[in-house]
């Protein structure tokens, strides 16, 4: 069943099943799957656009040091008689040109936005990767040991985590762990990974559910019984045959959650719960911009906001496209 909280399942995917359920699209298990997917994908112009945007964002993030005109943390001096934030196309006292204006510390907004992309994508990718790993582990174990107390307790935990709205759980967790490096046993988590970890915790239930659902489906298949009879251990089966077939729905889940993960990271920074100064962060820039709106510094809010909007848009288009390509029924309808 679809909900606007994509931790539950991919939206727009309608089948008359029980609510709170996750429907794994039926995937045909034969070669040529990849070709089929690519074929469907190419035909959808919207998803191509999404793909282009995402690629561009990744490009910007990777090549940030080259693309950014200035050091994003350098605070330039104001020309006499003026006060930062300065308007686009103005110069600092040292002569540095601010293509898109400067912020309240005299730092170049364009450079900060470029590095901000990098920070956002780093955060989102690590969050998803962690959520993926956690979810797959939880869901895999629960599915394999279906019906046991292990299954029950894991799924109860998943239920509980799902009962918190994502942002609120993240706020509570970050409040508990604080900002800055934290010791978790022998491991020191840097601030960024801590935030990624927190976000991952809020998104892993979705992956867990998808994984468990697919594992259950696969386990009912004949080839699993065959493998068991020929002496394969549980882990081998799980990581071998079953896992391969779980990949497509998990990828769909990941691509859809990418957009909301980005939104959650940006919201957290906006609320001041994210990264530490002077790290460039699009959410923090938006928050700083709020007090300068009435002074007329429109660029301060517009630049980071537009960047965030485009990135999320890219991932949404891409995610939709991927999902459409992987599900033949959808592909038939929406092309």
């Amino acid at each position, binding site marked *: 069943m679809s909900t606007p909280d994509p931790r539950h399942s991919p939206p727009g995917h309608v089948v008359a099943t029980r609510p709170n359920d996750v429907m794994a699209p039926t995937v045909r298990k034969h070669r040529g799957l990849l070709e089929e997917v690519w074929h469907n994908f190419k035909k959808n112009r919207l998803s191509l656009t999404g793909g282009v945007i995402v690629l561009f964002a990744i490009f910007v993030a990777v090549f940030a040091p080259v693309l950014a005109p200035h050091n994003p943390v*350098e605070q330039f001096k104001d020309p006499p008689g003026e006060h930062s934030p300065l308007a686009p196309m103005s110069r600092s006292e040292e002569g540095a040109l601010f293509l898109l204006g400067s912020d309240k*510390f005299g730092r170049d907004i364009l450079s900060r936005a470029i590095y901000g992309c990098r920070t956002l994508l780093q955060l989102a990718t690590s969050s998803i990767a962690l959520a993926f790993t956690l979810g797959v582990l939880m869901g895999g174990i629960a599915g394999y040991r279906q019906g046991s107390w292990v299954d029950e307790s894991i799924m109860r935990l998943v239920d509980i985590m799902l009962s918190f709205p994502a942002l609120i759980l993240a706020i509570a967790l970050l409040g508990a762990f604080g900002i800055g490096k934290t010791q978790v046993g022998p491991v020191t988590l840097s601030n960024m990974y801590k935030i990624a970890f927190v976000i991952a915790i809020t998104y892993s239930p979705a992956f867990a559910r998808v994984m468990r659902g697919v594992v259950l489906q696969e386990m009912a298949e004949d080839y699993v019984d065959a493998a068991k009879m020929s002496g394969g251990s549980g882990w081998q089966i799980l990581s071998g045959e079953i896992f391969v077939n779980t990949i497509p729905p998990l990828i769909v889940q990941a691509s859809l959650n990418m957009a909301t993960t980005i939104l959650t990271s940006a919201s957290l920074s906006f609320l001041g719960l994210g990264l530490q*100064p002077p790290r460039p962060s699009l959410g923090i820039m938006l928050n700083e911009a709020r007090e300068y709106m009435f002074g007329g510094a429109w660029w301060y809010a517009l630049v980071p906001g537009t960047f965030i909007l485009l990135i999320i848009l890219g991932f949404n288009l891409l995610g939709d496209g991927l999902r459409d390509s992987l599900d033949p029924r959808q592909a038939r309808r929406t092309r």
Partner: protein
Amino acid sequence: MIKETVVETVKETIIEKGEEVVVTKEVITEVEVEVEVVVTATSPPPPPTELRVGISTEPWDLDPAIRTDTGSAYIIQNVYDPLIEMDVNREPTTEFALAEGWEWNDDATVLTFKLRQGVKFHDGSDFNASVLKYNIDWERDPENEAPNAGPLGPIDTVEVIDDYTLQVTFTDPYPDAVVLWTGTGLSGVVPEGGHGERSEEIGVAGFAATELTRSPIGTGPFKFVEWVSGSHITLEKFDDYWVEGVPAMDRVVFEIIPDDAAKEAALISGSVHIVDKVPIKDFETISSMSGIVTERMPGIQTQLLYINLGAPPFGIGPDQVGDEAAIEKAYNLRKFLYHVVDRDQILDRLFYGMGTIQFGPWFPDSDWTSPNLKGMTTFDPALAQEYWEKSGYAATGLDFRMMCTNAQWFCDVSTIIQEQLRPYGVNVEVIPIDKSAFFDTMYETFDWDVGMEDWGQGTPLALNWLYYHSYRNEHNHNHWHHAEEGLREDYHETVPGHKEFCDLYDQAEVEPDEQARKELVWQMEEMATNDVIQVDLMWLDNLYAWRDSVVGYGDGVTPEGPINLKYVTEFTE
């Protein structure tokens, strides 16, 4: 005025043909008569005047004996009268205060108050000496756990001499009592029994609500009407206020508007008439707008960097006690920090130049600031470089943490300092945390390096500030401790000099001669500043703005910043 025709019949005697004849005449006059027209209920009374004030934070507690936040002060100022008031020069005054005068005995151990007569509380009861005694006794009672009771001093007895005379006897000389009492719960005098019963329902400890917390009753010009959490607090005129002509308006509504921009917009559009503060960057623009009056005056908020003297790199760890080399290294690093921070840049960038750079802990133009500190070099790149090299970190680089409260501009100041240190190879990790975690970390652990915060200098006494600054061996901001019997187990002796500092304080506290006391204070300030116990950056100016329809409000603004509506003479809206 009505014109009425009056006819008078007059008899006159005239002479006609030699004979006297009596003639009747009619004299007609027109008279203007003033007619009083009695107005009955058919004609409407003038609408009640309503003043609206925009404040930033919701008050916590309207009981003056237990409140600790500034938001509550705005309301308390207008619902209650204090025993002693402070004027714009931070001197005690009896204007709008319930004390008419006071008198010390020879050795500053007995203080006698003469109290104002004819003052009534909003509930109709009278103010007199026994009511005042109730106020003082309630606050002193340790069971009530009143947080503002400390400055009351070492009180021995409180005696009612007569209805309007109260005598307070201290166990030791306490010459600053009058000034210090303005910072206690006596900033608002409550009716006898006003605090009410302590019961499970309202809460047990002193911080739990009293009966006045949400329904204050005082002698002030305004009575409490309602408090809608998250929205506003309403007060209305108290007709029996003991000062004629005050207040000048019928109702006051304190609107809670946390967002500075919105508050500013409300002031400009006229939907509020007074705001508690103005965004720094907009002050100049607002000042030139018609219909708005602004004022800027030196304030009492000092911005400072707390330094952890109990651990490297700025201090001495427990295993380094007495280690001369370690002490020297930490000292050099602190001196580097002191001289490397460009205070003017911070002042200009964040505060638009509206503040005063500090030389040491106290106000730069006060004669309680040591003349040796005045005009001293603060920001100096050459000196900074010298100390940086002496400290030995120039070769290796340095990483340290600066925690800042995640509010107002504290993390912004930290961000600027972080950038100022970067060229030296210093990596500052700025850690924004909430206020509670900040102070918890600072007091309870040695696991921090530098903290950026501010402090409101509530009491205008330099010695008093030095008490909170560093005096308490078991509890000070910078972990400046000396070894002594009874020192907390988890504390250790840190940077040297604290014992000397405390000895100077003890001397100053009982020194009767003011000049001698000043010199002792100067010595303490020099010690703290030259050894860089903390870095006192700057005092910020207070910025006020109100609409010109509120006449006289400007006479009541002080560095403390409360919203004092008692001075408003006219409200023309």
